[in-house]
């Protein structure tokens, strides 16, 4: 194998995939990326047997061929080379010789034959989507997915189509995030459950892609494909819980707060939180006040009064502060509506004037 390509482009493509190979796989080949030179292009492949990705970039190829090299090592090397605009990769007895400007290095390689094949998706259905909208949608909710793998469908993001939009949902059974994104061809999108740990990889690969991407589905996988990359992720076979029933239809108390002020109050309060992160909210339209309260026997306590417009009945409840803070990055409006149904029912948070995002948190038991 021998080829020459633009250093910055190689570095950019590598940074999209170098997080995928597992760091401490018991099979060394799984921590590698596969470099192949084909007619006029350089193809990079990485996989951890849960997701698989293939990206390509234009290159001047002298001799075709391929070799596998440790991902972290190779990616760091390329990103640190500064000498010249172009870089030359050449395989020498199974190793890769990298030359750029005055620097010549040899990276030990492994046999390309041992590198796993990235599975084809037997395309049952396919559609095209806008990658930017998709990334935005899935990143808005993936934080709410469960960390534990006990129920795989809860450690995932559920994506389905509804009236011209894609709906993204995750829940860990204590809170739930839902984001609707208008997207063309939404109706052709098959409902899928994507493991949340693959979401970051999807976002990285889709970042900066400005053309529409083809999405294919089969029973156990989803594939994203364009001219410059192919990405395959496992999907969860199972049913996502029917969550519509737990979203309250009516509210008894509503508070509208300024997002920046609310974040400020939460941040200061968090200094006092105990290991349960409990924060108490006292919403009293009758006294025209909205307070947050954190008490900690060891440290002390803090009460913050927040400017707000209130309506409805008085209510007092406690939450896990982290669950509330988590949602802030997903709310884009500068004011937030907090809606309550009572002391034991979930709190619903939305941005003012933003119908696309909804966040639901269960109160804590006393």
């Amino acid at each position: 194998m021998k080829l020459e390509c633009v250093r910055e482009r190689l570095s950019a493509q590598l940074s999209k995939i170098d997080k995928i190979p597992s760091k401490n796989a018991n099979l060394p080949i799984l921590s590698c990326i596969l470099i192949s030179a084909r007619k006029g292009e350089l193809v990079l492949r990485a996989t951890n047997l849960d997701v698989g990705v293939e990206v390509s970039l234009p290159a001047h190829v002298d001799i075709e061929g391929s070799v596998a090299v440790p991902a972290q090592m190779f990616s760091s090397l390329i990103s640190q080379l500064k000498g010249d605009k172009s870089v030359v990769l050449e395989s020498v007895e199974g190793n890769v010789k990298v030359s750029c400007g005055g620097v010549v290095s040899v990276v030990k390689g492994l046999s390309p034959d041992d590198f796993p094949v990235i599975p084809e998706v037997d395309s049952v259905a396919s559609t095209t989507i806008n990658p930017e909208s998709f990334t935005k949608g899935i990143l808005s909710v993936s934080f709410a997915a469960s960390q534990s793998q006990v129920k795989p469908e809860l450690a995932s993001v559920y994506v389905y189509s509804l009236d011209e939009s894609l709906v993204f949902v995750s829940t860990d059974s204590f809170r739930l995030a839902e984001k609707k994104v208008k997207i063309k061809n939404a109706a052709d999108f098959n409902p899928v459950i994507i493991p949340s740990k693959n979401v970051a990889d999807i976002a990285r690969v889709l970042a900066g892609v400005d053309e529409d991407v083809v999405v294919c589905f089969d029973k156990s996988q989803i594939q994203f494909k364009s001219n410059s990359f192919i990405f395959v992720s496992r999907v969860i076979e199972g049913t996502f819980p029917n969550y519509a029933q737990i979203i309250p239809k009516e509210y008894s108390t509503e508070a509208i707060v300024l997002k920046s002020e609310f974040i400020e109050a939460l941040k200061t309060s968090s200094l006092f939180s105990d290991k349960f992160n409990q924060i108490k909210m006292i919403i009293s339209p009758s006294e025209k006040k909205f307070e947050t309260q954190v008490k900690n026997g060891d440290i002390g306590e803090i009460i913050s009064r927040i400017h707000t417009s209130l309506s409805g009945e008085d209510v007092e409840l406690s939450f896990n502060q982290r669950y509330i803070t988590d949602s802030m990055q997903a709310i884009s409006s500068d004011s937030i509506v907090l809606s309550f149904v009572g002391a034991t029912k979930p709190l619903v948070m939305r941005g003012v004037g933003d119908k696309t995002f909804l966040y639901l948190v269960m109160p804590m038991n006393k």
Partner: protein
Amino acid sequence: MSDQKKLWDSVLGSVELQVSKANFNTWFKDTYILKNDDGIIYVAVPNAFVRDWLFNKYHKCILKSLRDYGGDIRSVEYVITRSEQKKETDLPKKQEVGELPLQEPIINKDDNLNPRYVFESFVVGPFNELAHAASQAVIKKPGIAYNPLFIYGDTGRGKTHLIQAVGNHLKNHSNQRVIYITSEKFVVEYVNALQSNKINQFKEKYRKYDVFIMDDIQFLSGKEKSQEELFHLFNTLYDNNKQILFSSDRHPNYIDNLEARLKSRFSAGMTVDISAPDHESRIAILKTKIKTVGINLTDDVIDFIASNVDSNIRELEGTFNSIVVQSQLKGRTLNLIEVKNLIKDSSKPKKALSVKDVVKTVSGYYNIAEESIYEKTRKKEVVKPRQVIMFILRENLSISYPSIGEKLGGRDHTTVIHSCEKIKGDIKIDQKLAQEIEHIKSLLF
């Protein structure tokens, strides 16, 4: 089925010899034979990577080994299957579990009552029928019939269930304001109120209820100020004919460091105990549980659980729940052997008790020197414990009279007979002695 497993094990064995350990673990873990369809073997693999890899790299090797061990095999197909349990998830039961993703807190925050505790789910047997009858009387005439109602018994016997059921019933049917609180929480709130100078609000708060329920009263032991507060609260509520219910793990008279005026008040209404459930009651409890969950268990399995998990209803429920989860996972009814396996940890083997253990515990309980039991002394404070020891050895360990006598310092067997008969007779008249022996037994067994 086991033939297929055997066949696949042999195939894996021969593959393992040819590839490195890391390779083997990565590609062959979680594979198994799904079915053998007339010479075509379907191999289950966890994901598409493994499917493609096995097909591309190891197909020939697998096919060869399969033919070596399994004879007439035409070809091999690879099928993605999530895991062995996946096959059973199609059962309807599993679906129900996923239906409610968010757990609404079940306990009502205003009165701390758990709506699950109702009379409908309370199984009445000889061991608790008096307590049940008393609480029924309380429901009919709250504040008048038995005030206060004091229920005691060992942990896991259903005290909390019973007093909460009274609370739930009065709340739902007669619209009474009910408060349920544990004594520990009462103390914490009292201390907080003291710290923040809100003692008056604290007093107000509890005086407004129609029904006051306090659980695990024994934890008030030694908390003098809280006891005093409770005493005043008790008087106010009592004078206004509000119903009061208490639970504890022992009779009020045996709670240490409890003020005498509280003790006498606790005993003023009705004091009932819940003893250990008998075998038939345990079966009845299990059958009620089975009905609510809706699974099948054969009678011999129920009988087995009931006879192995005795004394404690909470443990009984725990054991039952683990059986339910197991059978949901397996998607079928468990048989006796599986159940035996499952509960071998939760049913504790009977401790082998020696005479020395009994002597040690009893002398410790009565606070006398262990040696004095074996001596010839006839001091009053030694005689009674010695008789109690003989009684327990005879009744519970079934040791013969002569050998009891011999072991306790060479006494005649007629002495032993006399002691046992005496205690047996005394228990019937002397409530205090009966309590003491119950207590000693709970320490021993």
